[in-house]
């Protein structure tokens, strides 16, 4: 593996890992706030238990998100020093504001996790909301930094020099709004479906049904609303990309030839050598509509873009198909769920509906990973679109492949640990949070005791 590929892979791996934890860190506090709110309003213990059980999960995810984020802030320099040397002062504004958001989040989390029975209940509730709001703010800010890489702004590039830097203009670049909106909704959709899916599975198993039903209802509501609006925001993103990064749009759609009334391609295998797509279903005019809101308009194809500036077509295309496919599937599930909620309440208890949710558990996160692949791979060969090539940004240090293997091993084992930890949390729900159903307590699976309490 050459060093350049290794560096890209390590960056992709670290970000792909971090994004899962950051989505959960951004969204779960809102779920908890809702459960907590119901508890404070109705005094039903089950809501308190749901809040506490979730907060345990969130603490695990939060810590993993925080360490993987810390790693990222170093990796930007470890892998792309030449990029950071020039980009740091320009796109740094959101990062410096983000520091504040993180800090507030960490402080509020301290209050929230350790504050049970110590503060005024509504103050305590409020700290939980602050965790969520500052998490969202930090997510939006980092995405604004990433958007700058897609649509550089706030400086003049003259003879290889970056002059007249304006960090505020850089932050409010053209892509920030569409990306931040789409990412925020994605985080809600992905986390909502993942959490609802796990609780649906537990209801199907028949354990602690009340507890899991309440949890499911909250998570599913968030996830389904987000999944319904996500395609709309995706449409905004696509129209945005069509204007600012025609090469990316062409790669997403494997659109080799510039044409009017361009067809939207569903599925298919891009054939880069012969510049066509095999076995695809074509919807005439729809690409023109997706890109410019007009079935007749012209869509730039890869033929208008110099060969050396082409992004990898197949990866971008497959990733885009996966994202949209997952998006459509989640939207259908949501439609079904709302239909059940308003028209057919009997469906809500039906095992088949729960089974669909259980199957849909990973869809949102698959879409998130695929979506980022579209954004990042579709920007290639540029690290700063149109300004600096990724190949010119990489660290001069040889042997990055070893670093990539090392980080792969670390992230794989961390992921395994987190899954293991969650599995144990869920297995203990009966013993810790819901006395109505005593699970299987054996000697070595005992709940926490006074000498090793849970918090």
């Amino acid at each position, binding site marked *: 593996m050459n060093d350049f590929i290794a560096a890209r892979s390590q960056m992709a791996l670290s970000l792909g890992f971090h994004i899962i934890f950051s989505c959960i860190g951004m969204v779960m506090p809102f779920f908890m706030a809702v459960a907590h709110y119901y508890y404070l309003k109705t005094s039903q213990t089950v809501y308190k238990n749901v809040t506490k059980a979730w907060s345990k999960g969130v*603490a*695990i995810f939060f*810590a*993993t998100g*925080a*360490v*993987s984020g*810390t*790693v990222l*802030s*170093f990796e930007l*320099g*470890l892998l792309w*020093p*030449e990029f*950071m*040397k020039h*980009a*740091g*002062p320009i796109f*740094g*504004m959101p*990062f*410096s*504001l983000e*520091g*504040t958001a*993180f*800090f*507030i989040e*960490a*402080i*509020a*989390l*301290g*209050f929230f996790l*350790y*504050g*049970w029975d*110590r*503060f005024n209940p509504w103050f305590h509730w409020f700290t939980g909301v602050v965790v969520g709001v500052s998490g969202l703010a930090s997510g939006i800010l980092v995405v604004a930094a990433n958007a700058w890489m897609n649509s550089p702004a706030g400086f003049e590039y003259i003879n290889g020099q970056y002059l007249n*830097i304006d*960090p*505020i203009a850089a932050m409010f670049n053209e892509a920030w709004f569409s990306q931040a909106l789409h990412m925020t909704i994605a985080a809600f959709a992905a986390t909502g479906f993942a959490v609802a899916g796990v609780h649906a599975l537990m209801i199907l198993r028949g354990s602690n049904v009340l507890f899991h039903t309440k949890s499911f209802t909250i998570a599913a509501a968030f996830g389904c609303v987000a999944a319904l609006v996500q395609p709309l925001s995706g449409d905004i993103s696509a129209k945005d990309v069509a204007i600012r990064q025609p090469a990316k749009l062409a790669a997403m759609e494997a659109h080799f030839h510039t044409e009017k009334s361009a067809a939207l391609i569903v599925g298919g295998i891009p054939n880069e050598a012969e510049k066509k797509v095999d076995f695809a279903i074509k919807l005439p005019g729809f690409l023109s509509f997706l890109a410019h809101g007009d079935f007749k308009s012209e869509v730039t194809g890869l033929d208008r873009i110099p060969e050396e500036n082409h992004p990898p077509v197949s990866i971008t295309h497959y990733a885009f198909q996966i994202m949209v496919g997952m998006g459509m599937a989640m939207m259908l599930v949501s439609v079904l769920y709302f239909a059940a909620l308003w028209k057919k309440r009997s469906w809500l208890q039906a095992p088949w509906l729960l089974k669909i949710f259980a199957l849909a558990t990973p869809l949102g996160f698959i879409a998130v990973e695929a979506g980022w692949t579209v954004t990042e791979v579709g920007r290639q060969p540029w690290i700063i679109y149109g300004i600096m090539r990724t190949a010119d940004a990489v*660290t001069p*240090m040889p042997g990055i492949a070893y670093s990539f293997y*090392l980080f792969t091993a*670390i992230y794989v084992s*961390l992921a395994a640990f987190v899954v293991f*930890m969650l599995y144990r*949390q869920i*297995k203990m729900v009966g013993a810790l949070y819901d006395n109505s159903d005593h699970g299987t307590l054996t000697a*070595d699976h*005992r*709940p926490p005791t*006074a*000498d090793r*309490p*849970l*918090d």
Partner: protein
Amino acid sequence: MLYIVITYLWASILLYLLLGGADFGAGIIELFTSQKNKQVTRKTLYSAIGPIWEANHMWLIIAIVILFVGFPVIYSTMSVNLHIPLTVMLIGIIARGTAFTFRHYDAVVDDMQHLYNTIFAISSFTTPLFLGIIAGSAVSGHIDPQAATFVDAYIFSWLHWFSVTVGLFTVSICGFLASVYLIGETTVEHERLRFAHKAQFFNIAAVICGALVFAAAWYEHIPLFDWVFGNWVGRIAILSATLSLVWMWALLYQGKIGLLRPLAGFQVTMILLTTTFKHFPNIVILKDGGYLSLTQHAGQEKTIEALGWALLLGSILILPALFYLIYSFQKKPVGYGGEAH
């Protein structure tokens, strides 16, 4: 505005050393605690730092962000030439942060706890060791952007006696801070005594490591002696740190613990002050005698301006909340044995 930004950079490094350092130290203490006392140490530790744990580590992120936004050349040079120790430190941060959380939030108590504890204790040692190595390398004059071979550019930039002794010194400082900190966290007399002994142990270790740092500096022709004692600020700082140390021990033997923490914090602040004062604003010293300076290698004015405002604004939001957090949990430490939340 540049000086405001530099002050923030220095302050976040200091706070990371003090707060994050005490946190690392707590793990280091665990490494040096006999099996039978480990459990109690762990509990005291947890009730002391649990709520502020996340916040303690934010200072590192603030420092890094200031560096890459405001001083990109310094950030990228260090990232290239100190790639290896930075990577080791990052692995330490990952291992430590997750082990700390896992051991606390694992819903089932079984043999896995040993694994978490071992990982936590070992990475509590290696992380500050490499932090110290990185700091030592920055000023040691071993970083050589023109180096021709891999070993010269990426290994000997950090692997030499001076950096390694600075690393060990950092570890002992962390142990010292944590033991002093923990003395005030327990009301049990023999527990206090135990932490006092630990403080003594790490104090001696710090003195020995400090001497080794000077020896290594002399051996490698680094004018450390001149940096520390060659100016009034250094001399006064070292003198007052030493006096405060004596005072601290006197208080400890009289059983007065109120002032211990501020005094320990003061000593560490003075150490950071002496070591950075003389060669300010140069924070990286290169092999060819060149410098990377905070004033000459700062980003463009508008960037510094914006960064400064972001930091000032951030502090207005953060500091009151942070103080309130520390204050609330000082007053009523996280309880044990009560309701299992």
